[in-house]
């Protein structure tokens, strides 16, 4: 028998979340780190693609 007809757990807190307060230096550092990760991953993806094309040929 189906008992659940409604969503049992809905938030009721109308209070605001503490606003973000980022340390600018650590944010800039984190963004740079992530951009390097993205670039490195794209290089790996590119080399996999080339390898696959070479093996197909």
């Amino acid at each position, binding site marked *: 028998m*189906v008992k*659940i*007809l*409604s*969503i*049992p*757990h*809905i*938030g*009721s*807190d*109308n209070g*605001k*979340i*503490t*606003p*973000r307060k*980022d340390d600018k230096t*650590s*944010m800039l*550092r*984190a*963004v740079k*780190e*992530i*951009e390097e*990760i*993205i*670039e*490195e*991953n*794209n290089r*790996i*993806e590119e080399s*996999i693609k080339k390898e696959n094309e070479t093996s197909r040929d």
Partner: protein
Amino acid sequence: MRPLVTEINKSHIANKYVFLDTNVLNLMFRDKDAFNCILDVFSESYLTIESLVRFEFLRDVFLPKQRELKELFIDNEVIFFPSAEHQQLFNDAKENALALSFIYAHKDVKSASFIDLMIAAKAVIHFPNAIIVTQNRKDFPAFLFDTVGVINYEEEKTRQISNYVIVSFNKENYKSAINSLEKVLG
């Protein structure tokens, strides 16, 4: 690659937990411009990672180096905010997810995966302080989730444009959905 932000009411997205779907994380991981654009759009909010989304993002990677890069990316706690995790919250989310699946089934929405349902369930728990960003609007249907913004993204090679939608749970619509479900079930 060119992310283009359409009009977004900042008051709807400021000071919120922004639950990212895996397809959004995949976009951010492959494109620096998209990453920076999303960071900028949600600069006043918390980019939140549900633990199951982390699992989905990391799974099926073959190369150890890529796995390491993905872990470094998603575990950067300056950028991303891990969703709160404990047994009670997980149990509550599971119950919400099941209830949502009943409402979806009544409306003939069957595409949402377990992970989509869990993201939605968490957003409901954190209502009204949560929003969701996804590429798959159909998995967060309009009868329960309102669109509060759209990020368009143009692929450099194909010039195809994809839409990433920002949605928020609508409690009033949810009540109507429950009423109509109860009428059907007698």
